């Protein structure tokens, strides 16, 4: 069917002038491809707008390159390089498992046996598996033993296997943690195996996979260990794996569950008992080093596992008691890692070419446009970002890269049946969606569930992200979303002749206020929904110190994100983490006890539930969403207040504002924000225009704003289903202007920027970009205001 034969990514989102950016390209088929660096101006091909606009840029990397395939080896696992201690003659393997897909559909992308603890490859070695029928299986070379009992999914099971090389006795145990009334017993299975274990040099010991085999192809260097392709990726949790070099009795296995014990004066061995310490090869404790890329071995040899492709950690273990949700305070109850066959932390592709970005290069949106003579095409998008202190403009566009990563390679139209209920029509898929639907190794978005159905809470930028592309319409609106939608705004800035810089979310996260304070105004993207704490701190510090913020969209400052500290050696903001906790718009919901981030250890979920209401950042916060069509705004009487009336110069009081646009056909649409002084909007916030009453039944109130499942929450009924265009002053001559709709920027390019949305935004930007503080508010505006008690006179007049 459709296929994208060329895909790529860069080693960073943002590159400083004078520095180098590297590009990694998969060209699977065509012998040659061409690279042309382009400046991106407009990415929406809708014939009612200006169309695709890009400018060729002279670059030393432009030219023709040889194509070659590069592969993503997704699926998480841990491994220890081969060594003599792991080449056991007898053994005991044991662990707790909570499998999510013990049995898969025959057409499932990775149907087959799943490795739990293995040092096995191509019929040689030993390993504990879940076989194709979903039963526990022990393999010794080419011989296997199974209990024949299907393992219950989404439930804890204790599993163990022993092999005595002297007697040849192999024994397999499968003990479900919960025994329901009508569950048959699963007795241990014994078999005599006369073979000695055959060890293949170089085959690693693996947890949650097995070694598929050595591969000499260049692309297999991207696997880990390099050149060894892993197979049998397991879906589910594993807790407390242990490996011993003798066949333990059942009683000894029970004792070994205690694992390694720290040495003291009175306890001078590493095991639960002296004899067991002598049998111990490795005893891994996944509660140790939750924020690392290591599976810590507390055994005598310190055979720490290299954890590949960033599985989900800080997961509740088999012994979770429910008393403490923070893994930092109940570590021993968080000994589980949830592995997924579609986890991906880094594609690890070879570099194909690099661009030495000349000093003086303008800070803008760019892409490496990759094409072939056969019509293949991909755009590897990136930004040139000035170093702090070398700003090029008074205006900065804050590229919402965390939000781009959160939406990276989403599969909702393909996998989520509910997608249609959300958009009130049949979703439309594009080439990118079709490619991803069969290339699950490219990983999903934080909106998706993994291939095993569990929530996806980690997203890497070191992989091709096909949603950060021009010419890409998202199923949510049949229109651009995120990156291509933000290009609507970029087109307008260019068309109107503004000078602007581009700065990244990650820059604000790592540099704080320094990244912002040299600009007169910060402009956001259309949907900066996902944010780290340091970024919000920086924005607050900026606006409190006189900075100006233009919030160009809606549903922002919503979810708590953090960058995984274990990946900082690869650059800024490589992996972002988010947990979908007790409320908010959630395409999946975290399980009890799994609310805290594995990277930073902070509580995840909505900023609202950490005491940081979204409305506090720019004055408005999300109230509702709907994805069928958009509507328009009308001015309110407050728009005549001299504190805000300047923004409406050139717009008649009765004018329909934004009843046109490239996202839903209007400026007010998709996700909508409102002023709420009870939820963090400053009490002096003015609402200049609103779209109240004009939305369809497809627009529904956000669930965090009501406590019951109830009627009356749609756009034809609920007064909070609206978008408010709002302004408030901040101290020291600063201010925030919130346009409060994701569709808003889609109206800017209409009629080549000659429209009343353009007039409104231009008025605001022209005022906000000036040097020095904003004009002071009239003296009579300085009055005491409550939060709930905002208009006592009118309240008294009501009957």
């Amino acid at each position, binding site marked *: 069917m459709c296929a994208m034969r060329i895909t790529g990514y860069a080693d960073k989102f943002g590159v400083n002038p004078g520095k180098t950016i590297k590009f990694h390209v998969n060209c699977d088929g065509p012998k040659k491809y061409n690279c042309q660096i382009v400046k991106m101006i407009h990415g929406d091909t809708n014939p009612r707008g200006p169309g695709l606009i890009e400018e060729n840029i002279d670059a030393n990397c432009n030219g023709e390159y040889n194509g070659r395939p590069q592969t993503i080896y997704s699926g998480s696992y841990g491994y220890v390089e081969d060594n003599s201690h792991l080449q056991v003659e007898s053994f005991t393997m044991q662990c707790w498992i909570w499998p999510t897909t013990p049995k898969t559909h025959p057409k499932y992308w990775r149907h087959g046996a799943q490795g739990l603890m293995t040092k096995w490859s191509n019929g040689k070695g030993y390993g504990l598996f879940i076989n194709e029928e979903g039963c526990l299986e022990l393999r010794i070379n080419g011989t296997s033993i199974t209990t024949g009992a299907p393992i219950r999914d989404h439930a804890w099971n204790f599993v163990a296997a022993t092999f005595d090389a002297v007697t040849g006795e192999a024994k397999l145990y499968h003990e479900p943690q919960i025994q329901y009334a009508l569950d048959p017993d699963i007795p241990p299975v014994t078999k005599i195996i006369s073979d000695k274990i055959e060890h293949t040099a170089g085959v690693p010991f693996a947890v949650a996979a097995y070694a598929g085999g050595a591969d000499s192809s260049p692309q297999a260097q991207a696997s880990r260990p390099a050149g060894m392709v892993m197979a049998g990726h397991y879906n589910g949790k594993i807790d407390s794996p242990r490996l011993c070099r003798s066949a333990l009795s059942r009683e000894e296995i029970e004792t070994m569950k205690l694992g390694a014990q720290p040495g003291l004066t009175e306890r001078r061995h590493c095991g639960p008992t002296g004899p067991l310490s002598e049998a111990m090869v490795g005893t891994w404790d996944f509660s140790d080093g939750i924020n690392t890329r290591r599976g810590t071995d507390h055994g005598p040899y310190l055979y720490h596992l290299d954890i590949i492709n960033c599985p989900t950690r800080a997961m509740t273990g088999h012994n979770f008691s429910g008393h403490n949700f923070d893994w930092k305070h109940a570590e021993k109850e968080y000994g589980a890692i949830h592995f997924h066959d579609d986890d991906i932390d880094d594609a690890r592709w070879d570099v194909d070419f690099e661009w030495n970005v000349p000093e003086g290069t303008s800070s803008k949106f760019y892409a490496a446009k990759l094409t072939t003579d056969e019509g293949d095409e991909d755009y590897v998008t990136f930004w040139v970002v000035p170093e702090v202190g070398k700003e090029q403009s008074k205006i900065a566009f804050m590229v919402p890269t965390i939000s781009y990563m959160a939406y990276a390679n989403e599969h909702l139209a393909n*996998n989520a*049946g*509910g997608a249609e209920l959300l958009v009130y029509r049949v979703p*439309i*898929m594009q080439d990118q969606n079709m490619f991803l*639907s069969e290339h699950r190794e490219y990983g999903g978005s934080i909106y998706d*569930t993994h291939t095993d159905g569990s929530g996806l809470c980690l997203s890497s930028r070191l992989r091709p992200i096909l949603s950060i592309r021009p010419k890409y319409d998202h199923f949510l609106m049949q229109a651009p979303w995120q990156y291509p939608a933000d290009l609507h705004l970029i087109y307008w800035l260019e068309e109107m002749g503004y000078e602007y810089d581009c700065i990244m979310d990650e820059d604000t996260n790592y540099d704080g206020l320094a990244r912002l304070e040299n600009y007169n105004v910060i402009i956001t993207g259309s949907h900066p929904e996902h944010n780290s704490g340091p970024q919000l701190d920086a924005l607050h510090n900026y606006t409190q110190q006189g900075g100006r913020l233009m919030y160009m969209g809606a549903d922002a400052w919503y979810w708590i994100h953090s960058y995984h500290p274990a990946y900082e050696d690869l650059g800024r903001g490589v992996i972002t983490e988010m947990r979908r906790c007790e409320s908010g718009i959630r395409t999946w919901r975290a399980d009890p006890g799994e609310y805290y981030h594995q990277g930073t250890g902070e509580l995840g979920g909505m900023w609202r539930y950490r005491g940081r209401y979204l409305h506090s950042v720019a004055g408005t916060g999300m109230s509702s969403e709907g994805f069928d069509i958009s509507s328009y705004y009308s001015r309110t009487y407050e728009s005549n207040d001299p504190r805000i009336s300047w923004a409406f110069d050139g717009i008649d009081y009765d004018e329909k504002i934004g009843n046109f646009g490239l996202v839903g056909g209007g400026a007010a649409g998709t996700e909508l924000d409102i002023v709420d002084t009870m939820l963090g909007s400053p009490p002096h916030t003015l609402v200049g225009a609103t779209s109240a009453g004009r939305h*369809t039944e497809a627009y529904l109130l956000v669930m965090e704003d009501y406590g019951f499942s109830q009627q009356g929450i749609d756009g034809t009924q609920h007064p909070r289903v609206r978008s408010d265009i709002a302004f408030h002053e901040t101290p020291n001559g600063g201010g925030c202007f919130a346009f409060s709709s994701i569709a808003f920027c889609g109206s800017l390019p209409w009629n080549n920027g000659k429209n009343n949305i353009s007039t409104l935004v231009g008025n605001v930007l022209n005022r906000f970009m000036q040097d020095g503080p904003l004009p002071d508010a009239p003296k009579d505006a300085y009055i005491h205001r409550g939060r709930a008690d905002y208009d006592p006179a009118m309240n008294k007049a009501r009957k």
Partner: protein
Amino acid sequence: MISIPKKGTPERNRLIATHKECIESMKGVPGCTIMKCETPGDTTVVSGGFQDDPLLNKVLIRMRTAMPGNFGGKLVVICTKVDKEWRIGRLAGVRGVPPTFVNDKVYDNEQDPQHDIFLMRLDELDEEDGFPEHFNEGWKRRDDHWTVT
């Protein structure tokens, strides 16, 4: 659960006619809802459609609730040439398996496939669903033809 009106009934014909009228009016809108634009392609004033016809609304919701693998694969629109060509496909319902095209028909706009899918679903869906006589074990395991996230 609401019944799907039988073939040839006035109710079914009404739903089809209303749906078609709405879809025609939505051509040119970067988005779509089953309502009628007063001016074609312009969402300034919209009315009618699912908001004024409770039966149409409920039939559409029944159609939209299906899981990706239900009824031989949930129907979906696939854009094959950006802003130029669209076709109808079916989701596989199995992760890692891409959608497949249902036929060779190529559309020159993104709204018409919505109506054809509506017609196909009227034929495909069981007239009745969701009552005790439709119980099966899947109801206990989120496989009840009602989507979940």
